[in-house]
């Protein structure tokens, strides 16, 4: 595994871990007191509350952020271990790629839910979207030698990916963004 990827795992995984932890704490505060307004509920569009209270927030029967706390902890640990000299065997790298692939699929399903069903953006969730995409992308191109030609355009692919999501977010909350101008 390359050192750059290890840094990405450390920093990206760390940001994801912070966001997932924050969401878990907000969820606990809300369970304790149903009238509690999450710190990330800024207005009707930027609102954790409406996202956290949705059915999609507990796909597997428990709050999604718990998955994030567990998953991102593994990512950070892997990043730090590689920086410390650990050289992951092939099976480990494939497992990391499989894990990030599941993560990125889940994130895209959540993006669709947020944009088209819940009609609200939750800032901590957006942080998770932002870090999960490059974690998946760079783990993938690093793991499979057959994809090495893509390394020549890695940044452009990532930028295009972000641009498409940004366009979808822009379109879905069009009235909100235009009201800010």
């Amino acid at each position, binding site marked *: 595994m390359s050192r750059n990827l290890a840094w990405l795992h450390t920093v990206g995984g760390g940001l994801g871990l912070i966001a997932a932890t924050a969401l878990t704490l907000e969820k606990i505060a809300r369970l304790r007191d149903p009238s509690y307004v999450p710190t990330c509920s800024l207005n009707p569009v930027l609102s954790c509350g409406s996202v956290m209270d949705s059915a999609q927030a507990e796909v597997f029967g428990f709050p999604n952020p718990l998955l994030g706390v567990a998953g991102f902890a593994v990512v950070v640990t892997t990043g730090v271990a590689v920086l410390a000299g650990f050289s992951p065997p092939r099976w480990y790298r494939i497992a990391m790629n499989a894990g990030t692939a599941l993560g990125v699929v889940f994130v895209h399903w959540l993006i669709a839910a947020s944009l088209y069903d819940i009609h609200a953006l939750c800032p901590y969730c957006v942080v998770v979207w932002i870090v999960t995409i490059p974690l998946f992308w760079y783990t993938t191109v690093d793991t499979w030698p057959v994809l090495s030609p893509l390394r*020549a*355009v890695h940044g452009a692919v990532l*930028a295009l990916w972000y641009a498409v999501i940004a366009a979808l977010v822009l379109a879905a909350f069009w009235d909100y963004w235009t009201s800010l101008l």
Partner: protein
Amino acid sequence: MSRRNRNPVTARRGPSLNLILTAVVVVLAVAVLGGVLLTNRSAADGTSAALRPPGSHTLSQSTDDKVTVVEFLDFQCPACVAYHTNITRQLEQDYQDRFTFVPRHFPLDMHPLAVPAARAAEAAGRQGRYREMHHALYDGFDSWAVTEDGRSTSADLARATAAFERFASQVGLDLDRFRADLSSPKVQAAIDQGRADGRRLGVTSTPTFFVNGVRFQPQATSIADIDRELRALIDRELAG
């Protein structure tokens, strides 16, 4: 050392393909998205037109239009009647002439009599009695919107029509004209417009309120707390 050696080489080759492509994507995305957003600034006017198209009815009309509350409603929705009884009716009286209150039709498919009721309100509006019919429909909710045992949503159109005609006489409408207007295309158009505008604004349930163009999403769950929250918001907007 190796870094030093590499730098001149990279400098001679110029920026990498990846860097160029990334920059192109970023610049294009920013230009297109930013451009679309900026050139469509007037879309904000589009929003206000979608919220309150010309000719909309008002339950309260302020002179300065400082605060405009728009409610997307369904006359046969139990939550809407609860809001009407516990929140909006009193709100309308307490803030009469200080805020503009615009009701919009958003009849839901699950309520078979919602469209006929919206037609009755619009038809009354054509005789200048929208407000009176609006209140009569909600005040008399039990006599047409729910089954006689009060347990479920009614689909009895004949009973509802009789109730609407009773309301029409009570509010002083010309009954023949009222009956003719019920099937008028203009009446239907006003309802369709409400539905289309609501969808465009992302309305999926009723009642949905917009206060000065921003969707009101109460954090509270009890109706009394929602009432307080809405009033606090209106007071803030009136003061601001």
